[in-house]
Structures are given as structure tokens and as C-alpha cells.
């Protein structure tokens, strides 16, 4: 997939949109698809980035930073998102803290692991039931606009937002 220039460059518009919205903190539980983005933010002094042991811990860190005036985003995979319903409901949505979530989507369009395929089906219903704005990024030329506007809306409305990285954008995880 990396020989496709579109699919190797998706992280660049994401980084531009994050910078345009003053996002400086990136906390993640890593994923293969996220690698180019993780590498780029680690190499960029604009960002503070590190791994948390669990996704809900990462949400807590970004929520705390946000209340302290530092905007941030949590990067994770579909399976990690599935651990978040309680913290999203009781901390981020209840307190109206604009935490950004970016989820590398597994479990669809060529998944080889049945567990991933099942847990993927829970993601959008959970986001919908918590009334969290979410968008699925599928095309490179739309990515910067969607990340920028979703982030802008999150900070203006003081509500979280989720951006889902479709395999159509990233190439996904190569079939095992």
C-alpha cells in the first residue's frame, strides 16, 4: 500500500489541520495504520506526544490538558475505542470537554480477525448514542477540511468529536 502516494500521505493534511486548530498534545495507544502520523508528530517540536497504557487513560490525560488550556487528541484503534463508553459518557460528554478522538478503523473492508470485525460494529452506535459528532475520512482531498472543521466545531461547541480513518484513506492493515 505504501507505494500508493495518496495512502502514504494522509497524515500530512491531518497534521496541518491539527496545527491550524492549536492542537499540541497527542496521546495514543499505537496501531500500525497510525504509524506515519505517530512518527510525524514525534518528529515535530510543535507537538508533545507519548503513549498511554490504555485508551481511557489517554482520554483522561487529554481532558485534563484541555481544562488546563492545552488542546489535544487521542489516537487509537477500533478495539481501543470499544473500551471508552464510560469515560466518554461520564467525563468528556458530561463535563463538555472538547477532546478529539482519531480512530484507525479495523474490522471492515478486508479484516482477517473476526473479533475486530465484531467490535468495529459497536463503534458508530456508541458514538451516536452519546451524541458525539463523528466523521469517517475516506478521501485524501477531503481530509484536511474534515479534520479542520470537526476540530473547530469541537472547540467552539465544547464537545468531543471523533474522526474515523477508513481503510479507503489509509490502505488499512494488510491482510494477515
Amino acid at each position, binding site marked *: 500500500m505504501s507505494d500508493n502516494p495518496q495512502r502514504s500521505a494522509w497524515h500530512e493534511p491531518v497534521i496541518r489541520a491539527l496545527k491550524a486548530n492549536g492542537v499540541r498534545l497527542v496521546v495514543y495507544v499505537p496501531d500500525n495504520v497510525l504509524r506515519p502520523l505517530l512518527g510525524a508528530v514525534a518528529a515535530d517540536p510543535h507537538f508533545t506526544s*507519548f503513549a498511554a497504557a490504555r485508551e481511557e487513560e489517554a482520554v483522561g490525560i487529554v481532558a485534563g*490538558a484541555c*481544562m488546563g488550556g*492545552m488542546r489535544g487528541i487521542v489516537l487509537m484503534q477500533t478495539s481501543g475505542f470499544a473500551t471508552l463508553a464510560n469515560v466518554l459518557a461520564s467525563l468528556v460528554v*458530561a463535563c463538555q470537554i472538547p477532546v478529539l478522538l482519531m480512530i484507525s478503523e479495523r474490522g471492515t473492508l478486508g479484516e482477517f480477525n473476526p473479533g475486530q470485525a465484531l467490535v468495529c460494529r459497536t463503534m458508530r452506535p456508541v458514538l451516536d448514542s452519546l451524541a458525539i459528532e463523528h466523521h469517517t475520512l475516506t478521501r485524501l482531498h477531503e481530509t484536511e477540511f474534515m479534520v479542520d472543521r470537526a476540530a473547530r466545531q469541537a472547540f467552539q461547541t465544547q464537545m468531543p468529536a471523533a474522526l474515523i480513518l477508513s481503510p479507503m484513506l489509509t490502505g488499512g492493515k494488510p491482510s494477515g
Partner: protein
Amino acid sequence: MAMLRNTKIMDRADLAGRLIARLRHDEAVIGGIGYANFDVFGAGHRPQNFYMLGSMGLAVPIALGLALAQPQRGVVAVEGDGSLLMQLGSLATVASVAPANLTIVVLDNAAYQITGGQPTATASAADLVEIARGAGLVKSAWAADESDFERLLVEALAGPGPSLIGTRIAPSAPQRQTPREPARIKDAFMLGLGTKSPF
């Protein structure tokens, strides 16, 4: 098997009062879910207090994020043993990120007191200060008694941290409950931190 411990079993309200009284620089305090934040509230509301209502185990992560956002401000997480056991990985994250302005105070009553006193793992086997040291938080210590707690706290607040102070407390219930209004709690906290301004 009961473990041999030479730390005094202290009173939670008394310790919370001592903690708040030692804060001289508008330090932020993150009160963990349940009795931990009731104790912080009971010691007297301050604009720089955040009271958790849910998201059990996240007092330390929230405090870590705040410590990164405001490196000039001291940040104190007050967390119970049950909550901390739920998010032990956060101790390793704190040690690895190593914010100099973060202090963790653990109120360990060896029980899930709020749900009826069921024993946690610290009642029989686990030692949270040893766990914290193992996670890389080298400045971790049990408070032997009240004056030792104050000594450790003053040292931790003076920094550089991160530091963790373990306290063993009796199985009593707090006197007051925190208001259950999450958005208001957040707004009041941000006003107190100066990250939100009044209308």
C-alpha cells in the same frame, strides 16, 4: 495474610484538611471518584478543585494532562486504592512522562468503602507504594503518621516531582457529598485555573 505495616491508620477528613491547608500557590487538586473527592470538597471548596463524577481511575491521568498544560502550577491527584488499582498503567505513564509539578496522594482504606466495604487487593497483598516505585516513581513513600504526611507533602509540592504519597486511612465515610453537576464543576474549575473567563 495481613502484612506487617508500620504506618498509622489515619482519618480521611483530617488528612484532607491537612492537604488543603498546605496548598499555598493555587495548586490544582483533582479529587478521584467517590469518597476521595468528597474528602477534598469536605475540606473546603477551592476554585482550583476538580471533583470527579464517574470515569473511575482517571484522577491521575487528568492530573497528568493538567500538569503538562500548566507546568508552572502544582497539581495534586487525590485517589483511592480501588480507583488506582483500576488504572495502574497510569503510574508508569506518569513516571515515563515525568512532570515535575505532579503529586499523587493515595487514600488507602483497603476497601471499596462506598459500595459496602468489600476488600480491595491492598487488604491482603498489594502495596501501592511498592507498585508505584516499580512503575518508576522513585519518589514514592508511605506516610508514617500525620506529621510525616505533611512533611512528605511539603517536599512533594516543593518538587521536582513526580511524587506519590501513600496514606492508610480508617474505614469511615466522608461528612459531605460533592454536588452532582459535571458541567458546572468543569466550568468552575476552568475559571479557577484562568483557562475560562466569566461572561
